[in-house]
């Protein structure tokens, strides 16, 4: 069949991940260009209706492994390796996300397959797929082709747009015997929310706080700045500070956090790592305060201030308050 197989991730309620749906749409489109078909793999207890509904995103078939748990990579490597081998898929495609990286990497080893990650675009060239991958902190874009079949493509967050095509997919249940080592990791709790439930997605002005704020207390200054803007403003955070327990997980922007596009994103003490950038690069205006002139965030800021936030932020807060009167 030589098609494209996509892993569709879902939460414990069976809601499919937005990035997975984007990957399904992308696979459907590419399969059309290649003259082949796209299919999805799902694991866990997903209803017939839920599985068939993936047809709306461009896949004709859904392989479902009901008894395999969702949330850990290695059992899913077993499932995908089997489906790929039995049906001769030429490519495996993943939307941006952590699990896709792990499953894609596992397949690389299992099938001796080439892998490209952080892919921002996929194109068809002479009947084959070529992946565009930004490298060296996005300073260059490499066009990567595959020697092996299958080729593994791991997308960057938000790289692929969701397109609803209408239609319903055929559901094929698969039985997979898990590898011995795939059963040696056990999920104790999944998707735990840490810290307060804050809403950053609706804000027009977001103050993005990073490790440069120095401590949990440093966020008081960021909150005061947000308050000075008044109205619809909030404080967001990087993974580094969320993992450190300085700020709630619900405020995290990026690959394993939220995607936002406020009118103003004002970053204080944020380096601008790729995994953070993908969650906020569509903000209308980006302003960054960072003491390191070489911080990557200055590469994509509209206004960059090279300086110490401890000096600048309090004065800026006062000035904005005064301006608002």
């Amino acid at each position, binding site marked *: 069949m030589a098609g494209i197989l996509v892993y569709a991730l879902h939460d414990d309620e069976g809601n499919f991940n937005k990035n997975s749906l984007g990957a399904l749409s992308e696979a459907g489109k590419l399969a059309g260009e290649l003259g082949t078909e796209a299919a999805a793999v799902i694991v866990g207890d997903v209803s017939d209706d839920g599985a068939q509904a993936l047809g709306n995103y461009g896949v004709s078939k859904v392989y479902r492994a009901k008894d395999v748990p969702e949330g850990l990579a290695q059992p899913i490597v077993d499932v995908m390796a089997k489906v790929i081998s039995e049906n001769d898929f030429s490519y495996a495609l993943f939307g941006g996300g952590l699990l896709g990286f792990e499953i894609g990497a596992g397949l690389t080893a299992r099938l001796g397959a080439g892998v490209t990650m952080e892919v921002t675009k996929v194109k068809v060239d002479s009947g084959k797929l070529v992946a565009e991958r930004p490298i060296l902190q996005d300073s260059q874009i490499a066009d990567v082709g595959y020697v*092996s079949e299958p080729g593994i493509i791991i997308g960057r967050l938000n790289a692929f747009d969701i397109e609803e095509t209408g239609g319903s997919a055929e559901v094929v249940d698969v039985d997979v015997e898990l590898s011995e080592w795939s059963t040696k990791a056990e999920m104790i709790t999944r998707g735990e929310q840490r810290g307060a439930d804050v809403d950053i997605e609706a804000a027009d002005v977001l103050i993005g706080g990073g490790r440069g704020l120095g401590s949990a207390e440093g966020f008081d200054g960021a909150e005061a700045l947000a308050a000075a803007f008044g109205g619809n403003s909030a404080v967001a955070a990087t993974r580094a500070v969320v993992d450190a327990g300085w700020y709630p997980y619900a405020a995290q922007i990026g690959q394993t956090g939220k995607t936002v596009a406020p009118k103003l994103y004002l970053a204080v003490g944020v380096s601008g790592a790729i995994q953070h950038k993908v969650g906020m690069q569509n903000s209308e205006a980006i302003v960054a305060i960072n003491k390191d002139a070489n911080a990557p965030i200055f590469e994509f*800021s509209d206004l960059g201030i090279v300086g110490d936030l401890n000096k600048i932020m309090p004065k800026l807060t006062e000035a*904005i308050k005064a301006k608002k009167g």
Partner: protein
Amino acid sequence: MKICVLVKEVPDAAVQKRIDTDTMRLDRSGENNLNPFDTHAIEAAMQLKEGGELQVDEVVAVTMGPDSAARALQKAVALGADRSVHLADDSLAGSDVCATGLALAKVLESESPDIVLLGQQSDDGECYTIGAVVADHLKMPSLTQVIKMDVDGDKLRCERQAEYGYDTVSLALPAVISVGDAINEPRYPSLKAIMGAKKKPLDGKSATDVGIEASQVGEDGSQTTVLALNPPPQKEAGEIIEDEDTAETVEKIVAWLDERKLI
């Protein structure tokens, strides 16, 4: 028990990294350093050893890379590793993720570790994948991006952020774990440790020593090819203000925001 830590030599953070367009490989001629993300993996190994809940007999730093990579191993030893293993072979040059993962798995197999630790990413390749590749070859359970690791009987209880929040996962040993940079604050090596590092055993291995066939690695074994390199779409450069007089800086920021009706 034995912990192997995978470490890599990468261009120093201050070096402007570039691709040599003749070979389509990273230009490694400038100043190099131990991958900063790997110092967290070494620290995690040291904390397991010093914590005493597991009987850790040795921590072994393992790398694959050219001769110069021995310096990264010395830094790893200065940070606490007991000895190191250096896989170096001309046949390995140009290996992609698929080939590198296989080669590292082969050299690790020769050490039979109980735990393999590695960094969340290499600062140059930024692939985030080597851990999961190595784990599948070694037939061990694995988890990446781990930010908390506790000994729980004969298992490791690990926490990490995935797409829906924090996951807590219990791993039976042997296991492969890549650690996130939030897991710990790496120690600084003491002068004594730096001086002593050269005296610790460094075991050089060739590809054939660990049973790697030349066809499996390097350019021959790689399953991806870089077809072209292009500059990213040009974005208009932003305005930059160097903060010299903060009152003036703040005035400029406010004016900039005001002009765009953002206040």
